[in-house]
């Protein structure tokens, strides 16, 4: 695995130092001597085959699983031994089964921790409405509903709102979109990314879907079969330069096509476009993947890229698209090791 660049410890929101977990009565470690640094404001995705220790690693961060060995630091503080209940109130946790309390309304579920922390009713009510709106649910419509009166996707949003209730700097999410149909999942992923733009939490996200990892992660930790991390790097670099055969096979065929989804049209140097009215137009927020897909669908080899605001439209040609990807792949080779795609600590 690639060693993270040495940062001051205070820049790391989460730091796992040689942590191991062996469950009672087991002969092998579920997680062995694992190191992981997560910078403030970044999304780190833990991905790997079933049973490789992703959930165990995640749950050691909020001490739902007590590590057998090693140290855990949260924002520079050693939290390996501190009171677990208090620690967990500083960390949002979203599980795959959502785990909303069925006997409480949506409002009470979301407001539970603020209430326990002793906030007054008015304050809690405002917070609940704010959070529901944040995750895209109309508070007036959903506040008084019970979880069973919601769809799976809506429950998942409430789960996220609840985890955000105490405004924790860190969020742990264990396959939050695992049990949701592909179309809704994609929408939730998009919303999740735009939500993160606004709230800038430090997020550790578990999935076994490499596609999801590539889409969401600033950095991805690929867990190998031996309960250690096979590669920890940005999605671009993992796609372009898998560390070993395991990672290569896990990332699978189609790595080049997938990497198209990481390149946004707005970031590409493109010439100005004339005769826009003759061409199909695509938003500059789209990715190269979307653009090539649109070209194939329409049977054209040029698209007009609409600029944001008053910016003039630009021209994307098929050949330029291919070259842009090529440049990105070789460019990331030279990029500094361990740098995240976005959301780095200031």
């Amino acid at each position: 695995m690639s060693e993270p660049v040495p940062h001051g410890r205070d820049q790391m929101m989460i730091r796992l130092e040689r942590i191991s977990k062996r469950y009672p009565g087991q002969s092998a470690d579920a997680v062995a001597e694992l190191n992981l640094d997560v910078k403030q404001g970044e999304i780190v995705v833990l991905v790997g085959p079933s049973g490789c220790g992703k959930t165990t690693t995640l749950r050691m961060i909020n001490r739902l699983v007590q590590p057998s060995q090693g140290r855990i630091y949260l924002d520079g503080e050693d939290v390996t031994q501190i009171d677990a209940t208090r620690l967990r109130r500083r960390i949002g946790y979203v599980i795959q089964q959502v785990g909303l309390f069925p006997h409480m309304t949506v409002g009470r579920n979301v407001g539970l921790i603020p209430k326990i922390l002793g906030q007054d009713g008015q304050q809690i009510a405002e917070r609940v409405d704010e959070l529901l709106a944040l995750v895209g649910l109309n508070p007036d419509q959903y506040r008084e509903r019970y979880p069973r009166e919601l769809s799976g996707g809506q429950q998942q949003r409430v789960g996220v709102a609840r985890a955000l209730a105490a405004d924790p700097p860190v969020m742990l999410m264990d396959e939050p979109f695992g049990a949701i149909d592909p179309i809704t999942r994609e929408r939730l992923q998009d919303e999740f990314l735009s939500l993160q733009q606004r709230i800038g939490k430090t997020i550790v996200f578990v999935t076994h879907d490499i596609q999801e990892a590539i889409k969401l992660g600033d950095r991805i930790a690929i867990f190998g079969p031996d309960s250690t991390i096979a590669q920890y790097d940005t999605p671009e670099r993992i796609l372009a330069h898998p560390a070993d055969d395991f990672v290569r096979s896990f990332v699978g065929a189609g790595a080049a096509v997938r990497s198209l989804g990481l390149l946004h049209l707005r970031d590409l140097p493109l010439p100005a476009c004339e005769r826009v009215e003759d061409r199909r137009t695509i938003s500059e927020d789209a990715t190269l993947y979307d653009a090539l897909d649109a070209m194939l669908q329409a049977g054209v080899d040029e698209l007009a890229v609409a600029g944001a605001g008053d910016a003039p439209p630009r021209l994307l040609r098929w050949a330029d698209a291919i070259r842009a990807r090529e440049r990105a792949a070789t460019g990331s080779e030279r990029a500094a090791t361990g740098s995240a795609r976005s959301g780095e600590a200031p």
Partner: protein
Amino acid sequence: MTFIEYLLERWPELTELTLLHAQVVLIAIGVATVISVPVGVAVHGRDRASRIVLSITGAALTIPSFALFGLLIPIFGLGVLPTIAALVLYAIFPILRNTVTGLESVDPAMIDAGQGMGLSPGQRLRLVRLPLAWPVVLTGIRVSTIMVVAIAAIAAAVHGPGLGKLIFGGLARMGGANALNDVLAGVVGVIIIALVLDIAFLVLARLTTSRGVRV
């Protein structure tokens, strides 16, 4: 005297006996609940402890009620006290068993979510486990109540209060004046109490169960 005439003439006394009967049942159920729920909370999730407690309280149910009332005379004498003691003994098992089952059948994901969001063990019990187990606990209380309404009639053997007096008295004087009417009135009274309490518990369950988990 026909049964109707009998009822018209004796209804003040019959009402009083019925109320006494219901009262003794409710006191016993109250005591049994106050004992069983905390014990259930203490032993749930611990296999050995709950097995031991449930075996002991379950064994009490197998003692013939007539014998149990008799056995309690040396300890509690005659009257209200041995009646309530015996009824409590019978009522404990269904409530305890349902408390344990109810607490243990709470979806582990709920507990996980509660623990993960920073609820202390006490808060998890109070805010998550108990409310979710409550409908099951209440069913246990209801079953105990119905059972104990019938057993309370036997309490007449230790001069306990209630409709048992009519039934036993009538049976002893079979053939005598109003003997059959006494027995009949006692039995009908027991059935009415059972029905009324059963309905009361259904209403209580509805009122005290969140709309989110109501079936």
